[in-house]
């Protein structure tokens, strides 16, 4: 389980960094191609695939990051109503919500698997890199099934311990308010 967690985290952080670098390099390349004496060396590099690879990396990041988000409780919902209910009734709504999440992602995973299966029978490739499209679309079933698993995992933990992962938006690593107060004051 720990390995799966680490894999998930490493994958999405790496995709984030890689997509940023690809676009950075592509923009630099476009401008260097405009500089007269460098032009002849770099204009032949074909970076037409940069946008496409960036988009695909982000779509994969989004699908797996959404699963990670279930584990860390980042997906926002309208909880003002149920928070006013008796704790045991609220608990039932929470479990219902988590199981609904598992149902949706499970169904989507299956639809996605089916879709990928059909696309794999065709010869469709992506426009720029000419990657087989079934491989690109594989993010849907893989990401959705992982997300489904995460919903079930969180639901199970909640039923056993009553604890939910909670994302604290005010928490910023490395900024300690007291220390910041001392530094932040005017000279």
């Amino acid at each position, binding site marked *: 389980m720990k390995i799966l967690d680490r894999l998930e985290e490493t994958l999405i952080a790496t995709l984030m960094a890689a997509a940023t670098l690809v676009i950075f390099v592509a923009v630099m390349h476009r401008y260097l*191609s405009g500089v007269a004496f460098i032009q002849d060396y770099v204009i*032949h590099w074909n970076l037409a695939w940069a946008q496409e690879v960036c988009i695909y990396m982000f779509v994969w990041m989004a699908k797996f990051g959404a699963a990670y988000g279930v584990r860390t409780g980042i997906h926002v919902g309208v909880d003002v109503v149920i928070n006013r209910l008796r704790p045991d009734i609220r608990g039932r709504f929470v479990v219902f919500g988590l199981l609904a999440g598992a149902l949706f992602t499970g169904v989507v995973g299956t639809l996605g698997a089916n879709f990928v299966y059909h*696309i794999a029978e*065709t010869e*469709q490739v*992506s*426009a720029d890199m000419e990657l087989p*499209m079934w491989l690109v679309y594989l993010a849907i079933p893989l990401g959705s099934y992982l997300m489904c698993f995460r919903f079930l995992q969180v639901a199970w933990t909640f039923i056993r311990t009553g604890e939910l992962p909670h994302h604290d938006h005010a928490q910023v690593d490395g900024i300690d308010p007291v220390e910041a107060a001392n530094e932040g004051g005017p000279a």
Partner: protein
Amino acid sequence: LSTAWAQDQIVIKFSHVVAPETPKGKGAEKFKELAEKATNGKVKVEVYPNSQLYKDKEELEALQLGAVQMLAPSLAKFGPLGAKEFEVFDLPYIFPNKDVLRRVTEGPIGKQLFQKLESKGIIGLAYWDNGFKIMSANKPVIKPEDVKGLKMRIQSSKVLDAQMRALGALPQVMAFSEVYQALQTGVVDGTENPPSNMYTQKMHEVQKNATLTDHGYLGYAVIVNKKFWEGLPADVRTGLEGAMKEATAYANDIAQNENDVSLAQMKASGKTAFHTQTKEEREAWVKALKPVHKDAESRVGKDLIESIYKEAAAAGFKM
């Protein structure tokens, strides 16, 4: 809405990605009108313009899934689908004029190309024009060398990428809707478009120069889902085929007319200086771009290119 539930009516969802006022949009509406009349109301055509239902990138998959029945994607979209032969339409100066183009699209070559789509669950019904392209930039582009070093916006296509590189330009793939601002701010220096596209996107406001190069062709194919089409009663299919034939002639006329009017209005605006090629200049462009045909042979097939050369020769052009 209630009619959609009626059991006996056949509904064709015709989805496209441009505005209803464009030649393609008008062609779709014309087909709707003719098809509903020809089938005595047995068929209802619902036209969804402006990517309302499906975007450029997903409409072909939606058609294969049966989520829509009819589309008119640009011919460049069939390469990624696995029918690389369609990239032949993107080749620069492959059609010396419209007559040769018609010989190809309305003759056996056009039919053979459509047959390539059948294994993908698609049937091709007709080819619709957008038009021949103008090369534009913020400096005069009289000779092919004038394009060297410029950042040129293209549609995503391997052939167009190779075409710009053959001219020594840096091709930039960019969504059509972003081109105006990119030209205005200088993210790209120039682009290529049929006159009507250039005019509707107001690109003449942000391009100082343009040459009527007619170097490339932009067109569409009207396609249907194969399973749906073959499941139609024979009389309905015949009626629809007739309607499509008529709608095609109509759409192509409008496209030509639209291009003529757009060019005249852009010229009248005085914002872009249009250059008409001399015979020598045209020859220089053809010479500079012809190597792209050779490079494309491995992708689209040597035979196909040569069969088009034959059609051109029959029309009196030596390729």
